[in-house]
């Protein structure tokens, strides 16, 4: 169905076809081409044997290709019906005809969507089903799902896979883009591996295991996160005592609710949880970007609750932000200016009289970071934007670690980075632990948490759970704590309890 100079993929009707590859391997470009956002320089795309020219998403929709994005595009304050018909008013109007069509689609694919629910009241899994429904409503028979499981907890992933099976049974075609190999193996009928913009191979899931697939992806052997012997000391570096953060409006539930935690030198505390349960707020309160409404934050005994961000950074708190494009980098600035960012008041940026910037020293420092942290770039003068996600992240970690912090806050440090960079980043976090830093690791990747943490705690609706021991905890236990489900309602599935690789 799809051809391109470098990429050749054929997808049969009524199958789930997975496309896997590292970030930067060309998955997103391929996707953009399929959805008409970007035009291929060479090659053709054909649906049912007809060669198409997709010049815009409108063309793609007309050809029956629909895209479900990783980040949902739903208006919270509208109902499901309103969200679905928005922009597609011509199909079935905006009234009862549309409502009937939504119910029909929902019933025939087992999506369980009620057209009159308010989107604001719905959970992540349900929202994703609305996105799928939106695409089906527009007449798509080929669905492209971009990293659909990134935002889901294990139980929701299983539900999604159930929905995909229903779609397949009705003769629809699903293209499933992911880098989570265990999931791909479970759901796909065929898997195409992409590396550096080319298709490496198309395989049947029955013939490969996750490790072989990963090695196809990277083109070499790869490491996995595994804990080493404990380096935890009894020196307490970071303490939070009864920290709370009130909601934006009165009456809203608190964003952070009575959070107390302690991290020692040489300890990694992992925070698991479905996104939006207060992890981001927790990190921002410690960094001083938000003011806690109650409680205290202490850095090695010193109360830093009311300190501004700059003083907290100067006192030795390193920060790897969860959204590096918004909080970690100046995308349009050269790399060396990005190395200064967050350390303007510290060496080597600090120039004469504390007023000037020592650009030379920062550029030397940047050269060293690029070398020591394996940042792949032709020059330190290119803009931050021109680097891949993994290289941006390595630059950020390099600049933070070179300031020798005492505490490191790492939020989703391997999100959106390729497998190679992921291994390197795990290495740096382990190194930080060996060097006696106190590390607060927030992640949505359970394997990463289990592999790197000394202790895991789960965040749900702004509150912290008890302690889990990463050596004994299962993915299901964490998953249940993440959704707040009590009791063993999730059926034990042997394949999900295997500790996957990526």
């Amino acid at each position, binding site marked *: 169905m799809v051809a391109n100079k470098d990429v050749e993929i054929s997808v049969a009707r009524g199958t789930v076809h997975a496309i896997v590859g590292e970030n930067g391997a060309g998955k997103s470009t391929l996707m953009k081409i399929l959805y008409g956002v970007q035009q291929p320089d060479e090659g053709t795309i054909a649906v049912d044997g007809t060669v198409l020219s997709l010049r815009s998403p409108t063309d793609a929709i007309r050809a029956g290709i629909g895209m479900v994005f990783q980040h949902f595009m739903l208006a919270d304050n509208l109902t499901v019906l309103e969200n679905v018909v928005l922009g597609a008013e011509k199909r079935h109007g905006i009234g009862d005809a549309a409502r009937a069509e939504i119910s029909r689609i929902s019933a025939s694919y087992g999506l369980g969507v009620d057209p009159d629910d308010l989107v604001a009241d719905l959970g992540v899994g349900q929202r994703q089903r609305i996105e799928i429904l939106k695409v089906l409503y527009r007449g798509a028979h080929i669905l492209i799902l971009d990293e659909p499981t990134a935002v889901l907890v294990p139980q929701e992933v299983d539900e999604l896979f159930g929905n995909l099976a229903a779609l397949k049974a009705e003769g629809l075609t699903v293209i499933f883009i992911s880098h989570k190999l265990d999931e791909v193996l479970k759901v796909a009928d065929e898997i195409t591996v992409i590396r550096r913009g080319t298709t490496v191979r198309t395989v049947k899931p029955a013939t490969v295991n996750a490790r072989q697939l990963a090695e196809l992806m990277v083109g070499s052997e790869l490491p996995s996160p595994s804990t080493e012997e404990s380096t935890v000391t009894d020196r307490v570096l970071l303490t939070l005592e009864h920290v709370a953060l009130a909601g934006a409006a009165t009456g809203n539930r608190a964003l952070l609710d009575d959070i107390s935690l302690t991290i020692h030198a040489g300890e990694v505390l992992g925070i698991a949880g479905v996104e939006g349960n207060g992890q981001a707020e927790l990190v921002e309160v410690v*960094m001083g970007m938000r003011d806690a409404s109650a409680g205290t934050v202490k850095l090695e005994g010193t109360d830093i609750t009311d300190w501004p*961000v700059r003083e907290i950074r100067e006192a030795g708190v390193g920060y790897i932000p969860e959204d590096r494009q918004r909080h970690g980098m100046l995308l349009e600035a050269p790399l060396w200016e990005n190395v200064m960012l967050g350390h303007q008041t510290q060496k080597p940026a600090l120039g004469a009289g504390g007023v*000037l910037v020592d650009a030379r020293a920062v550029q030397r420092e940047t050269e060293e970071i690029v070398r020591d942290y394996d940042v792949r770039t*032709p020059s330190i003068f290119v803009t931050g934007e021109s680097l891949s996600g993994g290289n941006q992240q390595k630059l950020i970690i390099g600049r933070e670690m070179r300031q020798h912090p005492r505490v490191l806050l790492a939020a989703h440090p391997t999100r959106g980075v390729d497998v190679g960079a992921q291994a390197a980043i795990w290495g740096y976090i382990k190194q930080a632990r060996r060097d006696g830093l106190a590390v607060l690791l927030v992640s949505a990747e359970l394997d990463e948490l289990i592999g790197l943490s000394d202790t895991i705690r789960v965040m749900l609706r702004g509150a912290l759970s008890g302690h889990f021991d990463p050596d004994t905890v299962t993915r299901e236990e964490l998953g249940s704590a993440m959704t707040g489900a009590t009791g063993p309602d999730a059926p034990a599935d042997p394949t999900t309890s295997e500790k996957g690789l990526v």
Partner: protein
Amino acid sequence: MKRLDWRRAGLGLAAPVLAVVVAFVVTTAILLLAQDPVGAVWGQLLKVPLPRQLVAVFNAATVYYISAVAVAIGFRMNLFNIGVDGQYRVASFAAAVFAGQGWLPGWLNIIVALLVAMASGAVWAGIAGLLKVGRGVSEVISTIMLNAIATYLVSFLLGKTAVKVQGSNATSTKSLPADSRVPGISVDGMLATPSKVYGLIVLAAVVGFVYWFVLEKTRFGFDLRATGRSETAAVASGVNVKRMVLTSMLLSGAAAGLVGMPLLFGQDYLYGDTVQSGLGFAGIAIALLGRNHPIGIAFAALLWGYLDQQSNGLQIAAGVSDRLVLVIQGVIVLSVVIAYELVRRAGIRMEQRRVARQLAAGDAVAPVTEGAAV
């Protein structure tokens, strides 16, 4: 790195050149539609200016330049200071009143008057800054309002403080003492004209240099640019954004306060109700065209001054209103905004491709082993 800079320079120049070309085409189209003599209009606008006119171009550009730098300070911080017009009115009036008293002798009077102008411009802009920081009022709205207030406030105060001049209806402040006037710079060595360039063209140059130095070389400048590029990243890096908003509004206002100074000390010697208006708005256009760059702004200011000057003869030479120049200037600004965005995107794509290509080439030579020791 050298090659990179040339590439950047090329991209940087592409947009303004494109904008000027588009303006030329659009204006020609308008003239054709209106059945005006196209040839005569461009003949008038593009003819070589007389020496006298050339001096006038530089004088106009001096004033425009300072105004555009004031606007650019805001732009670099993602603040849209539309209020330069009001700020320079308030400041010019305050400086004219102060300097007119002649409390201080000669140059001292001038320097203190310049400081008075900067302070009053800063105060006027600071109101908008405080409103934004304290109450979240958009600086666009508040500075527009403050422009209107400034106009009426100044004319009210002018009425209170004006000195009556025999045989004239004009109201104005007291004229500057003779020793507090800045002499013009004679250019008769180069150009055959007795006209003189404003002495305070030096002030414009100093403003431009300080603007460049503070933004590009100091930590404060880095913080300001970082905030302009990404407020979220700046907050995470420890910049106090509220303080930064207020400070840059004050600085922008202080620069705006100097806009009227070349006129006050080099030409009018007083502030009256006939003072030139619209300088602040021209500054917005010039800052956009000059891409907030101290040199770029200088060229844009000269272009503006040139167009103004050449438009004077339009009515006589071609029978077309000199307002046509406003159309040209407007089209330049519109197209420059679009052209910059296009060029910016093209630049990003080019650089991303180049980086990818260079990395791919490097990998082909020496396959790099993935990852660090774990």
